[in-house]
């Protein structure tokens, strides 16, 4: 066992075994002798103690709740400290000579990174390490963007590539999803900017043609499929969700703003095409998620299906319908959705029963 994720799964398994054994005994299905019970409890207690010491896992539900609180505090702390570093530098950098500015920027990036990697060896649960890692990432972003300002350097999309690389190094080595998200955002920006450049556009304006985002979405979805993330908590799901967001976001925009498309056709035709594509893609996403048991994919698909549907409802009926009727239709649609999803859920259960 080498990761905290595996250790936590093992401890959870022990907890589940204890609860199930309790039920079996109270139902009279099984009865362990005192020696057997003692041997199992001693083994589990030793195992839990060992894993808690080695990986700082949560041995029970109360500890798990506290861990959630610590994760939230760590996340908020990371954002706040990163913002503090950002504003601290802006507050004082004008007082420094150019040499001092450059030195402070480079040294801050290096020191915070070294500190983060060193802290990792002391803080196995990773709450403080994650906080330091986000500050380190912020320092590196500040480092490169401020050098650009100091020397009036022409902005380049390549900055997103190095920021992505740095964020991913930290995310993969520290099992940190917040930095994975930052890295993914930088990859999306870089790929979209490059696509815009290849289409003849100055890269800063890549958002003006939302189709620039589709290749990035494809890359993320392929990454979620082909990179083995079993040892990293939630990484595959993060790739999937952000890949889908990068598909559905531009579809949603183009479904309402056909002028932004690369396609040379009537604007209404482009918008209609993207609206249909959005519904088909959302339905396929839900089907794929159900088929492969991926709740994150199902939820993203459902969310966008509903957004697309409500956007159309607004286009069709907001002006012509009384408001009570409009919201009644929206509510009835939600109920219809619940019935459809219940059927899907039932089908899933049936498949599981048959498999059993």
């Amino acid at each position, binding site marked *: 066992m080498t990761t905290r994720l595996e250790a936590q799964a093992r401890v959870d398994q022990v907890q589940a075994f204890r609860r199930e054994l309790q039920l079996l005994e109270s139902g009279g299905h099984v009865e362990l002798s005192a020696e057997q019970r003692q041997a199992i409890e001693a083994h589990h207690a030793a195992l839990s103690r060992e894993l808690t010491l080695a990986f700082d896992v949560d041995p029970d539900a109360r500890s798990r709740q506290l861990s959630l609180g610590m994760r939230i505090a760590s996340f908020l702390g990371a954002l706040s400290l990163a913002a503090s570093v950002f504003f601290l530098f*802006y507050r004082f950098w*004008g007082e*420094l000579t150019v040499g001092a500015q450059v030195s402070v920027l480079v040294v801050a990036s290096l020191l915070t990174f070294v500190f983060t*990697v060193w802290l990792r060896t002391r803080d196995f649960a990773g709450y403080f390490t994650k906080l330091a890692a986000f500050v380190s990432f912020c320092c590196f972003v500040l480092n490169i963007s401020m050098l650009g*300002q100091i*020397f*009036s350097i022409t902005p380049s999309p390549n900055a997103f590539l190095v920021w992505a690389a740095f964020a991913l190094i930290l995310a993969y080595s520290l099992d940190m999803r917040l930095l994975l998200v930052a890295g993914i955002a930088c990859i999306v920006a870089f790929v979209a900017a490059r696509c815009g450049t290849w289409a003849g556009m100055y890269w800063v304006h890549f958002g003006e043609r939302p189709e620039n985002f589709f290749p990035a979405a494809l890359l993320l979805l392929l990454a979620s499929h082909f990179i083995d993330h079993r040892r990293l908590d939630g990484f595959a799901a993060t790739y999937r969700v952000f890949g889908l967001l990068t598909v559905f976001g531009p579809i949603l925009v183009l479904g309402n703003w056909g002028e932004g498309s690369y396609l*040379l056709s*009537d*604007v209404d035709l482009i918008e209609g095409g993207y609206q249909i594509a959005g519904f088909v893609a959302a339905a396929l996403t839900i089907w794929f998620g159900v088929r492969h048991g991926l709740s994150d994919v199902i939820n993203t698909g459902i969310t966008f299906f509903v957004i697309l549907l409500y956007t159309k409802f607004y286009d069709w009926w907001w002006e012509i319908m009384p408001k009570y009727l409009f919201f009644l239709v929206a509510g009835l649609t939600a109920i219809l959705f619940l019935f459809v999803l219940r059927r899907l859920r039932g089908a899933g259960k049936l498949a599981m029963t048959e498999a059993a």
Partner: protein
Amino acid sequence: VTPWYRRWPFLAGIVLILVTNAVVLGGALYNRSGEPESRLNLMERELQVAYGGWRPGENSAFTLRLEPRVAQRGHLANRVGYGGEADWLDGAKLDELGIQVRQRSPGDELSTYSTSIPADVFLVLEMNGPAYRRQLADTCDPARLAREERAKRICDEETHRFSRLFIVDAGLDRAALRTKYSDAGMYAIVHGQIQAVAASEDGRLRRYGRIRGLSSEDMQVPPSMRAAMAAAQSRRGTRSTGPFEATVAFGRRLEPWLVRLSARARED
């Protein structure tokens, strides 16, 4: 067990930080090496304070921004900005630059044309040259001064306050532009973006270009030049500065920097 400082993430991160900084600093050094590509003498008329929305005291840096203008078709004067329709950026020029408005489908109405995506080109900045003199002569035309009430005030502004830095041309070949505009003390070549627009005029399609921006237009004022900006610093956030003159150099990568900055006596 491998010690933490020998593990791949640590080494990769350190290498990434050092290499990225070396590339960025190397690029800046390359831009400023050798003789500058051009060198313009500007005043507070052409360099505005870029305060970027910071509240007083939050950003201690002091940044100046180039304020070029374009001579606009059918307009008397526009103090700053290049957002309007430049008189030289017509359909023929757009064809030369290869920037096209897109027709959504052949034979469609004019309204179905759209703007182009902003393309990167070389722009020519002209300081206190023929474009400014034409603008000044047009604005201060005696017949106009006699005819229009506000013309005298605008003529006065054009003479003493408005920017004399004009964007006068664009091209794709930097060397050809430099040959055409050989005076490096009056003309600077920079990177910028142009977007093509189609408009209906008397039922006919008319194409023109719009300048979307300069790639690099902000310059940090180093602490050594801050004394000259004391008047400006005391009025931060107003975009107004005391009188000063500055020399701005444009390097090999066409990125600008301040070479000299000194206070100047007020003209009035």
